[in-house]
C-alpha cells in the first residue's frame, strides 16, 4: 500500500466545500454499522482525516483537471434517509436472457434490501453478503482486506467513502471454487425531494487462488431527485484466480456518480473490468489495477454514450509491478450535443516489470460540433524489455459510410444508428461473457432509439 504524507493542503483546497461532509461525519459516525469495532473506527477516522486534509478535488488537482466537482459544493448533500424503503420494483435489471433470478444483492440509496436479494445458486463456501452483515458475521475476513487496496492517502473521494462506509456488497470465493452463476449487484439511486442525498457504497471482492466469478453491477436511478453515489470497490484476485467484473451505469440525469474500483492481481490472476456508462449528469469511473504477481493479466475496458449536458470521466491506472504481465484497455465513446467526456489512462511499468505487454486504445466519436473530449494517455516505462502501445483518436461519423448506407435505402437516423453501434461494438466485444455483452448491446441500442 502506497503511503504519502502531505505537509500542506493541496492546491485549490477549499475547506468550505469539505465542511458539510465533515460535519455530517460527526453526526452520523456513532450510528454507522460496526461502530464498536476499533479497527473499523480507526479506518473511518483515517478516511475522515485524509478527507479533511485533502478536501473535495478541484480542477487544480492534475487528475481532476477536466472534471469539475464545484456543482457538489452548492448542493449540500445529506446522508440517505429511509425514503428508499417505500420503493417497489416491478422488474430489477438483469443480464439473464431468461429473466430468471440468480444470486444478487440489491442496494437502495446505498442500503441493503434483503427482501429483494438472493443468494440462490451459489456453491457451498461462497459468501455473498452485505457489508453491514459481514461486519458481524465475517469480521475477520473484512478486517483482513478492507481498506488495503483502495488507499485513502492521496484519493480524496476514497477518503470520503472510507469515512462514511456503511454498506455494500461483500463477496468471498474460496480457493479453487468456480461460481457458475453470474452474480448481479443492483444499486438503485432514489434520493428524496427534500434534499440532495449522498451515499458511499463500499464493495469488497475477495477471490482466493484458482477461483473464478462473474459479477455484473447495475447502477440505475428511480425518479429524478438529486443523488450522489460515491462508491469504492476493492478487488483481491488471488494467484490463478479470475474475476470478470462488469458494470453498467444508467442513472438519471440529476444523478452524480463517482466510483473508484481498485484491483490487485496476484501471479497468473486475471482481472477483467468493463464499464458501460450511459446515465448521470456527471460521472467519473476510476479504475486502478495493480499487476502484483508474475504473468498476471488485466483488461480494463469500457464504452460510454452521452448527450445533452452530460459529463463522463474515465480515469484508469494500470500498474505493472511485476514481470511478464499483460494489460489491455479498449475504451470507446460517443458524445453528442454539448456533452463532454474525459479519458485519462495511465500505465506504469515498474523497473523490474520486464516482458510487460501493454495495450491501450481510446477512441471517441463526436456527433455534434459542441461535443467535447479531453484525452490524456500517459505511459511511464521504467523497464527496458517491454511492449507497450497506445492509440487515441477522435473523429466524426464518416460521411462516405453514411451515404453508402443511405444509397441502399437505409434512412439517415437508422444509418447513423448502425454506424454508432458498429463503432461501439469494438469495445463491447471485449466483454467475454455473452449474456452480459448482449444485455449491454441492448442498452446501447436503446440509447440510440431514445433520441
Amino acid at each position: 500500500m502506497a503511503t504519502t504524507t502531505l505537509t500542506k493542503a493541496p492546491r485549490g483546497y477549499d475547506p468550505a466545500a469539505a465542511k458539510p461532509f465533515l460535519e455530517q461525519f460527526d453526526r452520523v459516525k456513532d450510528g454507522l454499522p460496526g461502530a464498536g469495532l476499533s479497527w473499523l473506527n480507526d479506518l473511518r477516522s483515517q478516511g475522515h482525516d485524509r478527507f479533511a486534509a485533502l478536501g473535495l478535488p478541484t480542477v487544480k488537482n492534475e487528475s481532476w483537471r477536466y472534471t469539475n466537482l464545484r456543482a457538489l459544493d452548492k448542493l449540500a448533500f445529506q446522508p440517505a434517509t429511509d425514503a428508499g424503503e417505500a420503493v417497489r420494483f416491478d422488474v430489477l435489471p438483469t443480464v439473464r436472457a431468461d429473466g430468471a433470478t440468480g444470486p444478487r444483492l440489491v442496494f437502495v440509496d446505498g442500503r441493503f434490501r434483503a427482501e429483494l436479494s438472493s443468494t440462490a445458486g451459489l456453491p457451498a463456501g461462497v459468501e455473498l453478503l452485505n457489508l453491514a452483515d459481514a461486519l458481524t458475521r465475517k469480521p475477520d475476513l473484512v478486517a483482513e482486506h478492507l481498506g488495503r487496496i483502495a488507499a485513502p492517502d492521496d484519493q480524496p473521494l476514497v477518503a470520503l467513502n472510507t469515512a462514511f462506509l456503511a454498506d455494500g456488497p461483500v463477496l468471498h470465493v474460496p480457493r479453487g471454487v468456480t461460481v457458475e452463476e453470474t452474480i448481479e449487484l443492483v444499486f438503485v439511486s432514489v434520493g428524496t425531494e427534500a434534499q440532495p442525498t449522498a451515499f458511499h457504497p463500499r464493495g469488497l471482492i475477495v477471490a482466493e487462488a484458482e477461483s473464478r466469478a462473474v459479477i455484473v453491477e447495475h447502477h440505475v436511478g428511480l425518479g429524478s431527485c438529486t443523488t450522489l453515489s460515491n462508491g469504492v470497490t476493492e478487488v483481491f484476485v488471488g494467484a490463478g484466480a479470475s474475476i470478470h467484473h462488469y458494470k453498467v451505469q444508467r442513472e438519471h440525469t440529476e444523478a452524480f456518480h463517482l466510483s473508484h474500483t481498485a484491483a490487485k492481481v496476484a501471479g497468473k490472476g486475471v482481472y477483467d473490468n468493463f464499464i458501460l456508462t450511459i446515465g448521470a449528469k456527471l460521472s467519473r469511473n476510476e479504475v486502478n489495477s495493480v499487476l502484483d504477481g508474475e504473468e498476471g493479466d488485466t483488461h480494463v475496458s469500457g464504452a460510454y454514450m452521452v448527450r445533452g449536458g452530460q459529463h463522463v470521466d474515465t480515469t484508469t491506472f494500470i500498474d505493472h509491478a511485476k514481470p511478464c504481465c499483460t494489460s489491455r484497455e479498449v475504451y470507446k465513446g460517443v458524445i453528442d450535443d454539448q456533452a463532454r467526456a474525459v479519458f485519462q489512462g495511465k500505465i506504469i511499468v515498474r523497473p523490474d516489470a520486464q516482458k510487460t505487454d501493454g495495450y491501450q486504445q481510446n477512441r471517441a466519436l463526436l456527433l455534434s460540433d459542441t461535443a467535447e473530449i479531453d484525452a490524456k494517455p500517459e505511459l511511464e516505462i521504467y523497464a527496458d524489455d517491454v511492449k507497450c502501445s497506445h492509440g487515441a483518436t477522435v473523429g466524426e461519423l464518416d460521411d462516405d459510410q453514411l451515404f453508402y448506407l443511405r444509397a441502399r435505402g437505409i434512412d439517415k437516423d437508422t444509418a447513423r444508428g448502425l454506424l454508432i453501434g458498429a463503432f461501439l461494438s469494438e469495445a463491447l466485444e471485449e466483454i467475454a461473457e455473452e449474456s452480459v455483452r448482449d444485455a449491454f448491446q441492448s442498452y446501447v441500442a436503446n440509447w440510440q432509439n431514445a433520441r
Partner: protein
Amino acid sequence: MIEIKNLHATVDGKEILKGIDLTINPGEVHAIMGPNGSGKSTLSYVLAGRDGYEITEGSVSFFGKDLLEMEPEERAAAGLFLAFQYPVEIPGVANTTFLKSALNAIRKQRGEPELDAMQFLKLVREKTKALSMTDEMLKRAVNVGFSGGEKKRNETLQMAVLQPKFAILDETDSGLDIDALKIVAEGVNALRSPERSMLVITHYQRLLDYIVPDHVHVLAFGKIQRSGGKELALELEKNGYAEFGVNEAA
C-alpha cells in the same frame, strides 16, 4: 424511365456538369464513356443524391417524379441503384445485417412486407452462389478486407438482392482482373430485363465487351459530346478522346 434535362452541377463552386441531356427508356443499357475528370462520377453521385453537389440548373425526372427533390434513401426505394466505384468499408457492420437492413428498408418504403431472417437467408444464399461468393463474405463486415474484385462482386450482389429498376455502374471495371470482370458482368447481364435500365460508366471499352450497351455517349468537359450505338465504343478504343480536345497523355 429517367429523363435528364440540361443538368448543371457544381462542386465547391466549380462547375463540373455543364448541361447534360439524357433519356433512358425501360430495358435500355446506356454507356457513358469519357476521360478522367470529365464529370462521369459527378453525374452518378448527383443522380444518387450525395451531399456536396449543387445543382445550379436543369432537372431529372425519374418515373415522372423530381429525382433531385428526393433523399438518397428515397431514390433507392424508388428503384435507383448506384454501384460504387470505390465501395466504402464499414467495420463493425456485418454484410448480412447491412443487406437485410437495406432490403427491408426498401420493401418498407414500398409498402411491401419485410422478409424474416429465414426468407432473407434463402434469397441471399441463392444470389451469392451465382456470383461465386462465399458465406464467409456475408459474415464479414461490409467490404472490410475485401479485394477489389470482391468489393465489386459485393456491389453486384446488392444489386441482385435489391432488384433496382435503374442501375448506375460507376467504373465497375476499375480494379478488376479479367476473371472478376467476367463474373461481375455475368451478374449484371443476368439482371438485364425489359423493365430494368442501366447506365454503365466506364473509361475503357473492355467492360462493354461483356456488357453490350444499346447506346454509347461520350462525356467530356461536363457535356455529352457525342452519342451513338455500341460501335462508338470501339471507335473510342481505337482513337482515344483526342477528337474531343482531350490529351490523355498530359
